[in-house]
């Protein structure tokens, strides 16, 4: 097992544009081959226009135990959302 190819996370930007999205992972000996393999594994059905690969070990993730303090405070900021403000029906362009 000492020679196992490292694991990479694959991000693809789809035909329809917008941001790269995580689509899955694969193994490859280095970054160049990870891109090639990603092309052969994850874009077989015309899914992509751009590929990013990142070594899985290089990803830093938030800790699940921090979920409450990281994300709950945003729940009370309802005024950040446009629907918070009722607008008169006969005023247009808002």
């Amino acid at each position, binding site marked *: *097992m000492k*020679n*196992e190819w490292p694991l990479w996370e694959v991000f693809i930007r789809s035909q329809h544009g917008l941001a790269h999205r995580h*689509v899955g992972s694969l193994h490859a000996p280095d970054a160049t081959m990870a891109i090639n393999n990603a092309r052969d594994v994850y874009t077989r059905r015309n899914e992509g226009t751009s590929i990013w690969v990142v070594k899985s070990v290089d990803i830093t993730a938030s800790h*699940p135990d921090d979920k409450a303090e990281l994300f709950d405070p945003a729940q009370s900021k309802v005024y950040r959302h446009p629907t918070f403000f009722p607008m008169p029906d006969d005023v247009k362009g808002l």
Partner: protein
Amino acid sequence: MYAQMVDTGTPSAAAVDAQEARFQQRIDDGIRIEAQDWMPERYRRTLIRQISQHAHSEIVGQLPEGNWITRAPSLKRKAILLAKVQDEAGHGLYLYSAAETLGISRDQMVDDLHAGRAKYSSIFNYPTLTWADVGAIGWLVDGSAIMNQIPLCRCSYGPYARAMIRVCKEEAFHMRQGYDLMLALARGTPAQQAMAQDALNRWWWPSLMMFGPPDGDSVHSAQSQAWKIKLFTNDELRQKMVDQTVPQAEYLGLTVPDPDLKWNAERGHYDFGAIDWEEFYNVVKGNGPCNRERLETRRRAWDDGEWFREALVAHAGKAAARATAKAA
């Protein structure tokens, strides 16, 4: 199913501590479990076994159909079959990746398969004797697989559910190409029709066995259902498969090889004959027609490829070292 003999161990009420209760609550609330979340060790191990069995089934499952790639009778069918068997490799890859999030390496899983410690679906230990078998596999085997896999897109473990979504999207093509192939045979010469009937005769019962032992004998499925990594029982899925497939067979003008098969208006389902579970357990134990051959083929492919995998790692190491030396 593709993971039909997963032993989940016996859940003991006393062992369920507060943490595990919170974990179960999350599952009951429909919140996905992710790789970094706390999970009971039994959940982790059961998932590793279930997902890796599923992955192994995809990989070994390439072989029976791969047997016909070089003999596909038209260039169109050859292209479809190549793409399909390649998809199975992809499915294996997605599933191994999902299992890897649980802290086991792909090489370890492959080693478990080759050493006979891991199982794969019994269905792939039957031989593909004629071209019609390729159609029967797509229609019946992939049809059964989809039935099991669609619910798994909603299973409790996030990486597994996401892999299944990808698999299901691709799997619909597999079942259709199988039925399309059978349709061409059914509309073909008498020899082709006979070939189609013969394939149905041989694949029907193994396809029903794919769902695993009857619920009464499947003592561990209660825990898996509570964990939402198994969403329907074996018998529920099997019944669904029979109900769906019988009219499809009729449309093809083929006869399902079961004299006891009969529509039961009261139940709103087909009744069907007894399954030969002795045959099933025998195949699971390694005594099916092709168990030895399938494993040997996989082992040989792996061993023959060792130099390739090793050399690419060696090159990557050398190239990185050269880049560092140049930068210094």
